[in-house]
């Protein structure tokens, strides 16, 4: 009995991945239609696609207090207290790592990075072909906490994730430091151990124990290697409540020739004979967008170390100026063959500056002479 439930769960997650990929394909290639599989739609209709509220274990984040009438002296005092509390904490250097630098092996999972999608720039390859590259700005990432595998497997999500697998550790990474007055005391206490200014964004990255990092380690654009493939997670553009034509690609009805009030409607929603009801998962108007998506296998073509910018070939989910997470790719044929900066990149301690702008060999560098075929 127990075994059969597990099998069904696994099949669900497998189907979930398949449906996600299928939905991605239908959204991008509008001409290509998958055949209508009622089984898949019915199982997926029970999976909740998104929630608007955070999980129950999240602490209240934003300060709910209204403007209190504080005198200017007291305000200045508050500023001083903040400055004293969060005085310059020197970032962890490579030589400071407590754990011995463990060897990289192909099964290692490194940390990811939180970045902002700041837009799209066009670049050209060496044969003159134009390429759309997404510009990702790696924010001020710092490791907040490392949760070892045994502890993480006891948590709610950890238990689900590693049900019949060997458990892995979890790195909590924060990005975008901001004024502690904006947040609640409970949220700021998450960063007290580390002594960092509270971060606006937090993310969890699943890592193998040999890629664990101590708290307060900075993560920069140098964490990645030119030419590697990355997966980018983001929440897609929120289109709001959309009709059936935009949301599911229905054709609607004729624009003229006497059509009465049937231009962008769905039409029939059932047969009347089979089951004699509407099947769950019937495509109808509703909320579209703001969903978790991964764009996998995107190649890094350029890294700017000075501004912490990564140029990635292709597009990522989400609108401009939205936050995304970047991981080393999960695609088996595009994984690392040689060791990347493991566990992360640390700037050289002898003060030599790294190369500011690193380009992939396939791209045409703008300062170089024009291409002649």
């Amino acid at each position, binding site marked *: 009995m127990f075994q059969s439930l597990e099998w069904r769960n696994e099949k669900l997650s497998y189907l979930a991945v398949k449906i996600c990929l299928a939905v991605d394909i239908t959204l991008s290639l509008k001409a290509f239609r998958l055949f209508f599989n009622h089984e898949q739609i019915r199982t997926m209709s029970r999976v909740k696609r998104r929630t608007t509220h955070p999980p129950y274990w999240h602490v209240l984040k934003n300060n709910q207090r209204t403007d209190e009438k504080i005198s200017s002296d007291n305000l200045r005092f508050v500023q001083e207290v903040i400055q004293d509390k969060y005085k310059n904490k020197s970032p962890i250097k490579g030589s400071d790592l407590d754990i011995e630098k463990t060897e990289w092996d192909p099964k290692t999972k490194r940390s990811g990075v939180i970045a902002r999608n700041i837009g799209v*720039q066009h670049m050209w390859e060496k044969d003159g072909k134009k390429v759309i590259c997404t*510009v990702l*700005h790696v924010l001020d990432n710092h490791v907040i906490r490392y949760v070892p595998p045994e502890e993480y497997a006891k948590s709610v999500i950890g238990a689900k994730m590693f049900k019949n697998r060997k458990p892995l550790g979890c790195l909590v990474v924060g990005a975008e430091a901001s004024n502690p007055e904006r947040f609640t005391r409970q949220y700021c206490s998450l960063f007290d151990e580390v002594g960092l200014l509270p971060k606006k964004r937090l993310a969890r990255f699943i890592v193998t124990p040999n890629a664990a990092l101590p708290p307060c380690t900075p993560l920069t654009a140098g964490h990645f290697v030119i030419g590697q493939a990355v997966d980018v997670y983001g929440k897609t553009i929120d289109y709001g409540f959309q009709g059936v034509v935009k949301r599911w690609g229905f054709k609607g009805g004729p624009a003229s020739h006497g059509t009465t009030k049937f231009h962008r409607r769905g039409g029939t929603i059932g047969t009347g004979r089979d089951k004699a009801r509407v099947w769950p998962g019937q495509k109808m108007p509703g909320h579209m967008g703001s969903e978790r998506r991964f764009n996998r296998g995107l190649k890094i073509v350029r890294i700017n170390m000075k501004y912490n910018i990564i140029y990635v070939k292709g597009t990522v989910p989400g609108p401009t100026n939205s936050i995304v997470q970047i991981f080393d790719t999960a695609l088996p044929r595009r994984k690392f063959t040689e060791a990347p900066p493991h566990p992360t990149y640390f700037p050289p301690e002898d003060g030599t500056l790294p190369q500011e702008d690193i380009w992939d060999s396939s791209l045409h560098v703008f300062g170089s002479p*024009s*291409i002649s*075929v």
Partner: protein
Amino acid sequence: MLRRAFLQTFRQGLAQSFFKRYAVSLTETTVTHQPIETSDEAGEKSVPTQKTGDESGNTVVVAPPEFRFIYPEFLPDPAMERRNRLREKLERMDMLQRRSVIEIPEFYTGSIMAVTVADANSPNKFAKFVGICIQRGGSGLRAWFILRNVVDKQGVEILYEMYCPLIQKIEVLRLERRLDESLLYLRDALPEYSTFPMDMEPERRLNNSVVPINPLKVKLRPRPWLERWERQNLQGVEDLNLPQRFYDRAEKVAKPWEKYDLMLHYRKTIPAEEQEKIFAEVHSQLQQQELKRKLRRRRGSDNEY
């Protein structure tokens, strides 16, 4: 006193340029087609490149106001959803890098240009095309322009991306402006208005300080046309000689209130303060590149003798 006067004239110049730029919707004669000063003049003159002092006493470099017409692609796309200052700054740096390799001259719609492109299928690996610029657009590295010519009685239009590394050379053979910002009506005009010899030589201008405006009025072929030209308020076409019902329908369909819609124009443009900042950023590098090119030209002409 002098500084205030300068700022006043500067702002007046900006305001005039602002209205001039969106002259299509304006029917009144606030549209004074004032000749714009060219990049040569702007670079040589010391007065426009003033270092005005602000309150703290530090000198602030201000680029000449003509830069927004000479280098319009440095201004970003005004759509707020897609704007990001850091990305725009990085894009501008890349644009300057490309401009250090190839000279992208000042040109306007109506100028006749020659573009040499690397082409694998050509016999000598380079393809040259001469044509009149009928439209230009895009911002940043996506900036483009369309050249039109009539070759063997066949109209040909080619869209070139200004920063594409396949482009070897962009040459302006005749620098002038027309009465309209977009010359798409040349597609429906008589072919002689779009024909230019492929071996045209660059013309030397007598007066370098001002870009001349060609007041040519083009004759269109009889209907049918590709667009309803009578609805577009074109200055550069001869009288269309259409039946009155066309003009009546154009009046009904027209949106005369758009010229009063300040927010519409605000959303379509970058604010003047931001434009000043952007051009001040790129100004010194562009000037340096111009000077280097001039020295190279002079040295080249000296070596001839």
